[in-house]
């Protein structure tokens, strides 16, 4: 056996699942070496790193199929030694085809959302859902848009002509409505089988949510359940109101007897202001039966014994919790009944919105500071309760969690709604930008903003009156460089050269070295090259020139003219229309190019934010970012703008350029260097 020179991966064995079965002895030896000597990884060739990463990928999915926890631990420890291979990006998140120290959150995404050049490397371990690829994301990059991974599962749950039925069952408590789910045997069978597809992932807030879970979208199931509820509406009307439909976004939970309970909480109601919809009742569909202590508690109502296919409804104002069955798995679906409401039926509750913003923020912060989890949990509950009861007035001594952060020497305090900065440290535009970067956890270079900050949790009085003093002791040195600078955007777009019609495209690369006179390529004057360059510049300018914030590498540049500051408000001028954000929506975000060598990549956060409120208090700038207020929702994504340059060290055949034009591959070239054949 030749340990040091295992065969490099060939194209055919990169394809999953070809490589799953039977790792070669050489590959196993390689993994053993990495496990024995963590420093070895950095000394491996690119080919060997890829070989090892593919092997870790395959071992991971094999381990998922076995209950052997030791094997799982082994794979996890091995994954921690392997750095991410490839540069795929999905839904704005950097993703890896194998688990690594940073990219360890398993998700399933439509394979087509992965750029074609990376796609073959990603496993598709779900035999019934071969269109879904398994990706590993870095939890540090999550923001409120990407906390959850919503799977499109209509293909698994098709409704047949036979309807689902709900038979009312006697309830032990007036707050609970119980039904038995029947009818459509194929759909019931498909529901029961959901547990066996290997879709479970650990929740972000595992400490309070427990067990395994996955979230999915199933329109036909929603319609079938909606029809099944219709005969029971007269009985539910008092609690429910004007029923519209069952939310097509479901969560499937699986608890083993030893799993911690789903901690007591209040559900955050769904709201779609455009359609006048809110959710009012939570629906649980128990796919398995068993006994728990209790299996479900809703307020004062207890359910200890649950039969399979029992459906439980209760108003979302109730605090509730669930414990695992004493024996056997507890598997249930969770969704909600959505009703129509008129605008005058709702009361504007800005404090509840602020609390919800804090809860979202703290959830993201839990990745870095796990002790914030209980504050996030509390904030969600308080915000949810406020939807029905209003927010109770705070006791003066109430303590909240604040994140004290330092980003390149600038200290600030944040809780997801309020941001405080030293007024002497930053301009208002810089304050707004920092708040935006933090809220959306934007990626700078290859690192999420929050990972670039040092963070500590301050548990202090909720009124924040102590903050100016605390921050006053942490002011920057006035001689320090400004945190962000204005960029003359034109510097990114040097004008094209004049076309020389006689300039033919070279067929071969001309090598040169410093011993000989270097004749620079005149390729930049070739007509095809100039046209390509101009087209690429037009595309890049369309994104870059209107952008208020440019992210290049780990640097942040501002266009102050795109910030309008008025008394007490900062407006960040965006170019896209405002669209509501549905927390339970499924969205495919375009792939962001990252690795083009012939282009400098500029990330342009596409921000649609309501005006940011600010006030100056005690030497501080206090910003308030109520991104979720009223119907204000935020659309946020980062798009890359590849700033083109004509590369003269690498030449491409003229035929290739012509072909590129003919085949409309131009766009692809803009997206990724992989389409640039190097001669």
């Amino acid at each position, binding site marked *: 056996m030749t340990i040091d020179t295992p065969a490099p991966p060939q194209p055919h064995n990169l394809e999953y699942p070809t490589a799953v079965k039977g790792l070669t002895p050489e590959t196993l030896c390689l993994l053993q070496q990495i496990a024995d000597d963590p420093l070895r990884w950095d000394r491996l060739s690119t080919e060997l790193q890829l070989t090892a990463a593919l092997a870790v990928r395959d071992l991971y999915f094999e381990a998922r199929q076995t209950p052997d926890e030791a094997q799982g631990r082994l794979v996890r420890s091995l994954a921690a030694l392997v750095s991410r291979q490839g540069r795929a990006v999905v839904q704005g998140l950097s993703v890896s085809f194998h688990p690594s120290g940073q990219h360890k959150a398993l998700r399933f995404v439509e394979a087509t959302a992965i750029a074609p050049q990376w796609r073959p490397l990603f496993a598709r371990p779900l035999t019934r859902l071969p269109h879904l690829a398994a990706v590993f994301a870095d939890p540090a990059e999550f923001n409120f848009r990407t906390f959850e991974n919503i799977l499109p599962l209509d293909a698994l749950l098709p409704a047949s002509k036979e309807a689902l039925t709900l038979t009312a069952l006697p309830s032990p408590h007036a707050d609970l409505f119980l039904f038995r789910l029947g009818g459509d045997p194929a759909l019931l069978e498909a529901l029961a089988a959901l547990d066996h597809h290997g879709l479970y992932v650990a929740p972000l807030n595992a400490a309070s949510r427990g067990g395994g879970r996955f979230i999915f979208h199933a329109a036909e199931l929603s319609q079938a359940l909606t029809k099944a509820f219709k005969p029971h509406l007269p009985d539910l009307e008092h609690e429910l109101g004007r029923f519209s439909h069952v939310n097509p976004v479901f969560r499937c939970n699986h608890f083993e007897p030893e799993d911690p309970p789903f901690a007591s909480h209040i559900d955050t109601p769904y709201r779609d202001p455009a359609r006048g919809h809110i959710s009012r009742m939570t629906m649980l569909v128990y796919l398995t039966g068993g006994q728990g202590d209790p299996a479900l508690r809703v307020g004062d109502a207890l359910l200890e014994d649950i039969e399979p296919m029992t459906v439980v409804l209760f108003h979302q104002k109730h605090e509730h919790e669930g414990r695992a069955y004493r024996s056997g798995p507890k598997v249930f679906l969770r969704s909600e009944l959505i009703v129509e409401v008129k605008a005058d039926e709702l009361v504007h509750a800005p404090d509840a919105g602020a609390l919800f913003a804090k809860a979202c923020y703290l959830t993201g912060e839990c990745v870095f500071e796990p002790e914030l989890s209980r504050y996030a949990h509390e904030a969600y509950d308080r915000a949810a309760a406020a939807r029905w009861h209003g927010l109770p007035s705070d006791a003066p001594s109430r303590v909240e969690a604040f994140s004290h952060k330092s980003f390149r020497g600038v200290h600030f305090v944040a809780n997801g709604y309020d941001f405080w900065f030293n007024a002497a440290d930053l301009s208002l535009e810089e304050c707004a930008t920092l708040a935006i970067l933090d809220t959306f956890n934007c990626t700078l270079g290859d690192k999420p903003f929050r990972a670039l900050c040092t963070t500590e949790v301050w548990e202090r009085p909720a009124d924040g009156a102590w903050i100016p003093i605390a921050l006053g002791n942490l002011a920057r040195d006035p001689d320090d460089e400004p945190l962000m600078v204005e*960029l*003359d955007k034109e510097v990114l777009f040097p004008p094209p050269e004049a076309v020389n019609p006689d300039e033919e495209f070279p067929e071969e690369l001309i090598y040169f070295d*410093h011993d000989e006179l270097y004749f620079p390529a*005149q390729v930049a004057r070739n007509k095809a090259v100039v046209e390509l360059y101009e087209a690429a510049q037009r595309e890049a300018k369309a994104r870059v020139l209107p952008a208020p914030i440019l992210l290049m590498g780990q640097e942040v540049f501002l266009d102050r003219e795109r910030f309008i500051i008025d008394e007490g408000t900062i407006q960040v001028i965006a170019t896209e229309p405002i669209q509501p954000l549905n927390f339970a929506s499924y969205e495919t975000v375009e792939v962001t190019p990252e690795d083009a060598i012939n282009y400098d990549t500029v990330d342009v956060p596409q921000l649609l934010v309501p005006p940011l409120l600010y006030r100056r208090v005690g030497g501080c700038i206090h910003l308030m970012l109520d991104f979720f207020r009223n119907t204000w929702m935020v659309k946020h994504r980062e798009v890359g703008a590849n700033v083109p340059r004509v590369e003269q060290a690498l030449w491409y055949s003229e035929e290739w350029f012509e072909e590129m034009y003919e085949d409309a591959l131009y766009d692809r070239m803009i997206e990724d260097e992989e389409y640039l054949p190097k001669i």
Partner: protein
Amino acid sequence: MHKAFVEVRDLLLNTPIGAQTSATFAALCTCFEPALGAGGSGVATLIDYAHGHLAQWHQAIARPLPLSWIEAVDSDHAPSELLRLANTLHLTPKLLPLEELPKTLLALCKRTDLAHITQVVVADVVLNKAWVAGLSHAFFATTLHRLELPYCEIGDSGLQALTRSPKLGGALHTLDLRYNRIGRSFQDELAQAEHLNGLRILRLHGNHVDQIEALANATHLSTLEELDLRYNPIGPFGAEALAQSPYLGGLKRLYLHTTDIGGPPGIRALASSPHLNHTIRRLWRARL
């Protein structure tokens, strides 16, 4: 009356003095071309029509000198009033037959009534040392603000003729020498041309420049605001020289590709420069 004369007259009558724009000037040029072609006393008539407007435009508009006017210069038909309209000589093979271009250039350089020419653009024609010398000793050379000679292959000898001319001096703020096969003598010539002490824009991309230490330490180039060195193999040492230059702190735009400066070592040098302005430094830091 010649149709073109009528068009000029109508245009001028409909354009109040003081309300002229570049667009009306362009329209005027379009009318003038055939009118001048008609020759004869009509030219004088045109000038009579245009006189009041020309006086305004003289100060307000910088435009390339139309080709037919240049030809008129040679044939002694061109009125000096017209010449004063333009402050730019723009000679390219698109405007003039290639074989005629150097000759025309030298003829213009010898004229004594073109002192108002402040900008010269000659492109896409191979200029030998004699022609470059003729240009750099032109009567108007002392007042030139902008000299652009892209794609002219002037080479090291042409650069020498330019930089050693005592006439080109402090008034020159833009020097565009891209794609000129300038190589080894570059830094000696430009670094020693202390009379070029008003340069703000220096475009040198697409040459063979690989040594820039002397340039980076040329005190007379401390006025530079834009420096384009793309497609020159200056390598990491060149980047280090730029980064350590105490005279380039006023640069607002520095055009270089990472391949020009040898990749990461060059990037690191520029990103950590103690002198370059912080925007330039950060643009390079962004590439680290």
